[in-house]
């Protein structure tokens, strides 16, 4: 197995390169870019929504159960089920659960933490967080890799590097 990395100076070139590699089905393709290029298609917002709803209803239920059933107390003559007063905590709980779920969801979805990846071995790869737009092809097939080099030649990659995987 090996990774073949192409670094481009412009995102347009990268996008074209990635498209070509994918169309050819040469192996697993992944991009690494200094700025986000892709967007949308994430399921995490739905997770956040669900967690938020759950956090809010959970908090609301907790308060209701505690004051109505578990430990009813006469506080200032107010009714046990003073639902308007339960809203603030429900809201905060919902928001907090959303944030926490979002961060956790992201870690899971992005498979983080992942301190090591084979592409790290590439000397030039660090420019992925600076100015170069990388596309990495992962394949065990030397022919496929060679084909890829040829395929992307016209896009003038700034760097090409191959590392073992």
């Amino acid at each position: 197995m090996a990774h073949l990395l192409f670094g481009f100076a412009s995102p347009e070139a990268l996008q074209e390169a990635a498209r070509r590699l994918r169309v050819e089905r040469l192996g697993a393709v992944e991009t690494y870019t200094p700025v986000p290029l892709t967007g949308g298609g994430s399921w995490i917002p739905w997770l956040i929504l669900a967690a938020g709803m759950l956090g809010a209803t959970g908090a609301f239920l907790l308060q209701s159960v505690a004051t109505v059933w578990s430990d009813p107390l006469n506080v200032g003559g107010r009714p046990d089920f003073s639902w308007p007063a339960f809203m603030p905590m429900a809201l905060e709980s919902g928001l907090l659960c959303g944030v926490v779920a979002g961060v956790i969801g992201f870690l899971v979805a992005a498979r983080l933490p992942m301190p090591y990846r084979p592409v790290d071995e590439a000397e030039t790869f660090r420019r992925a967080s600076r100015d170069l737009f990388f596309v990495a092809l992962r394949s065990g097939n030397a022919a496929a890799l060679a084909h890829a080099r040829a395929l992307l030649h016209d896009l003038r990659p700034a760097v090409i590097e191959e590392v073992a995987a």
Partner: protein
Amino acid sequence: MAAIFTPGANLAAKLVLIGGVAAGAGGLGWWWLWPRTNYARRVGFPVEQPVPFSHEHHVAGLGIDCRFCHAAVESSAAAGLPPTYTCMTCHSQVWTNAAVLAPVRQSFARHRPIAWQRVTDLPDYVYFHHAIHIAKGVGCEECHGRIDRMALTAKARPMTMGFCLDCHRDPGPRLRPRAAVTEMGWRRGPATPPAQALLAAYHIGARRLTDCSICHR
């Protein structure tokens, strides 16, 4: 050598993350569980006393009633411990020279009280009242367990607030006929009046027994 980390770091990072979460959860769990353990509540741990007094012997063996020694239990908040004089009603006749009884004899002779260590100990801010419980048919056993089986006295119930509240929310099933209050090992029999009847007979229900003012002041 461009990579900063080795492949092993991936596993390590995940383990650290999961371990951290697990440790946090475990800590919380422990924090929740600890006050409920018998160890923390001292349930079943005998307390060292100046005289190794055995309820097993005196109650189960000799058949002495609780009220013989804890005379105030029916009329006062505190049950009270027997004055040395009570011990000496017998121990001036039996076991007169036993070494273990030396503190009792000394107390009697020097007129200094025996300092018994508390076994059942509520915090100062909790006000318990024996007489009312006895009057309403709550057996000693309910809170002190099988005293008659204790060679050395130990706490038998956790005595947490939750313990008190469990009964105060619904005392009925734990009530006994008045005569059986000091009886150890008592069981509901066919002749025992049902909980509702006992509640009614004792006129329980007029109070909200879960009010803080019942126990705290």
